């Protein structure tokens, strides 16, 4: 069993996979990450994370359709598994519970 704790980057990638749905393949995810966060990231780094998340069982993937803009090559589309969904909502619940205990936020 791999470690099931999520890093910040992993969490964001997981969310992006969920957001992008049928379009969730490495280049799109990296692209979306850059436009949403303004942080540069290499496709390799994203791919490596996707690979790790798949090994942990949070993602599955299958080869999708080809398109002309990528030289007729197919892409690998990632989608969330049930345990991926759960680990995301766990992470959110944990944060929400922390935020609710934070006096500055709760009071204001």
């Amino acid at each position, binding site marked *: 069993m791999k470690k099931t704790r999520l890093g910040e980057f992993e969490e964001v990638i997981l969310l992006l996979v969920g957001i992008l749905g049928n379009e969730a*393949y*490495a*280049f799109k995810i*990296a*692209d979306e990450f850059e436009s949403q966060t303004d942080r540069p990231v*290499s*496709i*390799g*780094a994203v*791919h*490596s994370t996707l*690979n*790790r998340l798949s090994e942990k069982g949070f993602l599955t993937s299958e*080869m999708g359709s*080809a398109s002309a*803009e*990528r*030289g007729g*090559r*197919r*892409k*690998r589309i990632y989608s969330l598994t049930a345990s991926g969904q759960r680990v995301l909502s766990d992470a959110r619940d944990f944060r929400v519970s922390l935020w609710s205990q934070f006096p500055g936020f709760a009071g204001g």
Partner: protein
Amino acid sequence: MNNNKYIPPRLAERLLLWFLRNDLAEEVSGDLEERFYKTAAKKSLSKAKLNYWYQVFHYLRPFAIKKYRSNSNPFIMYQHNFKLTYRNFIKYKTSFFINLIGLTTGLSSALLIFLWVSDELAMDKLHEKDEQLYQVFLTHEENSSLRTGPETQGLLAEALLAEVPEVVMAAADTETEWFGDNFAVSNGEEVIKAKGKFSGEDYFNLFSYKFKHGIPDRALSDKSSIVITESLALKLFNTTQVVGKTVEWHLLHLQGEASISAVLEDLPSNSSEQFNFVLPFSIYKDIIGDGMHWGNFNAYTYVELAKDININALNHKIASFVKDRDEGSNVSPFFKQFSSNYLYGTFNNGIQTGGRITYVRLFSVIAIFILVIACINFMNLSTARASRRLKEIGIKKTLGAGRVSLIFQHMGEAVLITFFALFLASLLTFMILPEFNELTGKQLSLQFTPEIIGAAILIGLFTGLLAGSYPALYLSGFKPVSILKGKLNASFGEVWIRKGLVVFQFALSVIMIVGVLVVFQQIRFIQTKSLGYSKDNILKIPVEGKAVDNMATFFDELKNLPGVLNATATTHSMVESGAYTTGIHWEGKDPDVPIRFEQARVYYDFVETLGIKVLEGRSFSKKFGNEQSKIIFNESAIEAMDMQDPVGKKIIMWGKEKEIIGVVKDFHYASLHTPVEPMLFYFEQQPPHSALVKIDGENIQEAIANIQSFYKTFNPGYMLDYKFLDQNYQAQYIAEQRVSVLSQYFAGIAIVISCLGLFGLAAFTAERRQKEIGIRKILGAGNFSIVTLLSGDFTKMVLVAVCLALPVSYFLAQYWLSGFAYKIDLHWWLFGLAGVAALVIAWLTVGFQTLKTANINPVQCLKDE
């Protein structure tokens, strides 16, 4: 072509497919291509290409890279060789560590020396015009020999520029040392001591120092300008934005105002010139006044020569340049490349004879010696261990291994351990570099520039191949049949070579021991040699400010301070040769033989304060009032003038008649590199600006405190800046002292590495001869006879090494000492000591091993088999 324009860089794509896992190829190259087109559309093609490369390199991640599995023969053999190398290291830890320690220390010594040498070689090469930048030297014919020096006439630069067409640019210059600590600048409030000099208008066009503000062309064109360095600017004004501000400069009783025309970046450490500010040469000209003529050598001259000139022909052409202008002159100028002065700065009788390059060569040789010694360890230990690996080699050969592949295996083993050692050596070098810098007075740093990495890899490969060469060639040459039959005994050749290597190693160590002893002795000789005057407890203080106008009172009051024994003043530094003159005439002088006199203007009590011995007559004394028409000579001068009963005779100095009132015994006014030459002492009513104060050795602190408080009240606004004369004396031998300390360290390292090798070899022999010793013990041999037996071999080797090394070291020592006019005698015991030391060290090294073997219980080593 147009179609090709919008495709990703092919090379990057090929690289990607080469390392990428096959099952990822389709998706990844698709992703990257999509990214490429998007970037190309949004930004530019070149950005897109660059980004593609970036993305490719970011796929160099463990998950994406092909797992390399191959069944090819070479690959399996590499794996196999690695495995064997590793197992051998693990199995024979002692010899592995001996090799590793030896190679690591050897390599880091070599690295340190490499850093030092390359720094020395780069000195003064920073100027853009380096190739064409020359300095003028003058060769003087005098006392029937030739003397060469950089001091030229202040007029020379302009004259050369005007009349020699090959001279493109020229600037006169002065040396910062000439003004000692007497230069200061002030911002109107505070007076700050700084190193300054005067330079001609084009100085900064010749030398490319970096400008922070201002430009070289206009830096010194105005007579009221001054160029200062960044750090001086910060000290004076707390900012470097100071162009146009006014500062005052002080030089003894002289002073002036100048406006800052430019600010220099601080001078880099690879420049031998170090100064804080530069004033225009025209000011110096005014100060010297009538002294600017062809017989006065008071400036340096730098020139830029045209490209592609024949320097020898040009030097030939200008040899008579000064003589054509000044009849009776005895000097001939020549051009010498400026950047070569640092390393090749010593002249003997008109011929360039060396300089710092001697030390550069010396240490390069030492570095090679140390590496060779470390390599010999490796060779010895691996050939000695060969017997253990013979079966492996025999079987490999039987199975068809070629000789080349065996050589390759053993070379590879050596290179591998060398690079491991190189890695450790870099770490070690990194750690000891601060101490090394302290020792050498340099600011070296281990930066991984391509040159350094290249050099390190070269040193590593050289060492590895050298260390591996003998075992590789030797081990691979055996006949498999004789190996497997067990017939192979240590052949004559093997033993001979192994012994030869040990002899060679120890010979090098003995040479180093002798070297260290000689250098050490000579340094101590210099430091303790009686100089003919007493340099202890003498303070050197500048006379400046208000004291300049009231010198007589200043000296009177100074002498009366408690703790002050005597005081005088002189123009001479007392530690190095200063001004000299040939303008002395006397009855019976041969007009064709110019004799050079070292000259010193002195004040009352000079002879008494310094404890110089008066041979005849008297010294300058206040009792006799004005002594301007009197003169004192040293012994050598009287001898050179060939004068009988000199006291009372008259001579002509600079056109004025003077009476000889005394003769003093020769004393060493300069470093012991040069012999004592004729010297004269003359007197003028106004004392020189540098006072020498003899204080009570019992209460040094108190005396200094008294002088300080006196100075403060007498001379408000000035801080007393004192130096001990013997400190100045030590400073002139700093190069020798550094060599002494460094050679001690490196000799120590060489000896330790040699001993490591010997230790390994002794351990090995002891192990091999265990059975023999067991039998000897059973037959009644005592411990002592076994120790003698085992160490006898080594003793012989070391003795041979000593015999070989002593003559060589004698010649080397002679050569080094020939640079000193006053030197130690090379006594036989010095060499004896080195020999005995080598022998004792060798005995101690093998002693432990032999004792252990001699004490062995014969049952232990005979019970099996």
